[in-house]
């Protein structure tokens, strides 16, 4: 065996070990969901069953919270994408002395720990009567996702050459038409990254709806999943696992979708670098 093969073997073994450690919690959720007698350990089920899925696939456990999640995250994502695309256009296309300070502020806001402002947001929402409303929560979600979305969108838009628009301009198209008909279609992958990224971040967010919503009937899945402890007496781990899988599947699929589209999973890492 030469040194190169040896080194590759050592690297393979290292990765295999890391994979084995990282996969344990994931194995628990998959195996427990299919096990009628699931507990807290990773174990192969005695017999495979879909009873856990049957038990959780009812309105008040799965469908209502997922619908709430969809309304919250879908609404906020739509707002984010539309506002970010509109905002990114002048930032990317026109030179202005406001661009740099604006972008710096955006970048600064991107990094702020949103968790820290949730107590004042709660107090503010009580004052202006937005507490426990879906639209209030959607607005807050959108506002907190916007800085990063604008930043990403502007960077993607910079990649679309200006010359392509100039022909449309001479034909008398307005900037809005040229954004809608030329720029956005050309940056399809960029728009989908912004959309999926915003949606995935919100779908998994627990603290924001936990603070701003009160009525259990409006709670998204990220909060309602906690009901498996407490409200329903003894914890049925198999059902918790089944629900976790149902709740996580959309974001995993969305991630795979954009990772494919951009050739490898490195898009987000690369995008964050600027």
């Amino acid at each position: 065996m030469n040194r190169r093969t040896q080194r590759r073997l050592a690297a393979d073994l290292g990765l295999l070990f890391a994979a084995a450690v990282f996969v344990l919690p994931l194995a628990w959720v998959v195996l427990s969901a299919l096990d009628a007698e699931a507990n807290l350990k990773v174990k192969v089920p005695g017999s495979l069953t879909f009873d856990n899925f049957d038990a959780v696939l009812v309105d008040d456990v799965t469908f209502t919270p997922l619908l709430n999640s969809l309304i919250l995250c879908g609404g906020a994502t739509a707002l984010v994408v539309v506002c970010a695309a509109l905002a990114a256009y002048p930032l990317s296309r026109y030179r202005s002395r406001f661009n740099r300070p604006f972008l710096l502020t955006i970048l600064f806001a991107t990094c702020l720990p949103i968790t820290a402002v949730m107590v004042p947001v709660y107090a503010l929402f009580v004052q202006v009567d937005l507490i426990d409303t879906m639209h209030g929560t959607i607005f807050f979600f959108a506002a907190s996702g916007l800085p990063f979305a604008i930043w990403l969108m502007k960077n993607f838009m910079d990649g679309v050459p200006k010359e392509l628009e100039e022909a449309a301009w001479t034909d008398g198209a307005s900037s809005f038409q040229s954004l809608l008909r030329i720029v956005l279609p050309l940056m399809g992958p960029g728009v989908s990254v912004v959309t999926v990224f915003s949606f995935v971040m919100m779908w998994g967010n627990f603290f924001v709806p936990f603070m701003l919503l009160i009525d259990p009937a409006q709670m998204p899945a990220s909060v309602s999943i906690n009901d498996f402890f407490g409200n329903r007496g003894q914890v049925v781990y198999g059902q918790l696992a089944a629900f976790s899988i149902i709740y996580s599947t959309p974001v995993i699929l969305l991630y795979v979708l954009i990772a494919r589209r951009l050739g490898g999973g490195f898009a987000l890492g690369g995008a964050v670098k600027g």
Partner: protein
Amino acid sequence: MKSASAKRGPRRTLMRALPVSPAVLLMLAFLAGPIGYCVYLAFTDLQLTGQAASSLIGFENFRKAFTDEDFLNAVWLTLVFTVLSSLVGQNTLGLGLALLMQRASKPLRTLTGGIVVTAWVLPEVVAGFLLYAFFQKQGTLNAILDFLHLPSQNWLFTLPILAVSFANVWRGTAFSMLVYSAALNEIPKEIVESAQVDGAGGWRRLWHITLPMIRRSIGTNLMLNTLQTLSVFGLIWVMTRGGPGNRSQTLPLYMYEEAFQNSMIGYATAVALLLLIVGSLFSLVYMRLLRTEV
């Protein structure tokens, strides 16, 4: 373009700024507004219930915080959590995995990458439950330790801060791995090869060539990891609720408890403001690192 805009003057500028306004309005109302309100509230004694009006009390909240043992405990735990899980855990492990991936065979690269990224993509609360099950007394970790005849213990009770730190490493390493993989791929092959020809060994190449060449990515990654870790709430909430007692109560959980269990909105906001200031300092450093790109 420039001459055209100069000709048509301010009206043109206004038209161009118009598309930015929905985003700006949203961010002013729901982001800048709360931050401004945060600065104001931090100097009041607002409580959650049964108080007609709050009054300005100057720096009283901050004075209270720095003499409160629970606050100092939360600061200490936040520091431990951040250093262990972000600086040491996610960052080093992420770099390690990225380096191994450069050499490993394709199937293992795909397998490990897929598993680590899945842990990252999972919703925060789900990750919390999975690691709760892993560290629980009857959980997987103890089952493995028993199998190996090693002493087991009730991790969430004896070492809660260590357990939640590991949980955060499990969940967050993928980000560092992706950033470092991208950075390593950008290092020109010739440089590595010429170092090999010169007889530089693996560790020396890493220290003298690889690390200096990706130092910008290291800085970016450290900043973003730290900022993300500072605001972790759901993961710890699901695993330990900050307990037992307050032994895994980092600043966000302390803030939440003061606001809603103890009804001290004003005081909790002062803590939030401190967290926000620390976050802002990190943001400014991060922006220095990126400054060439705006």
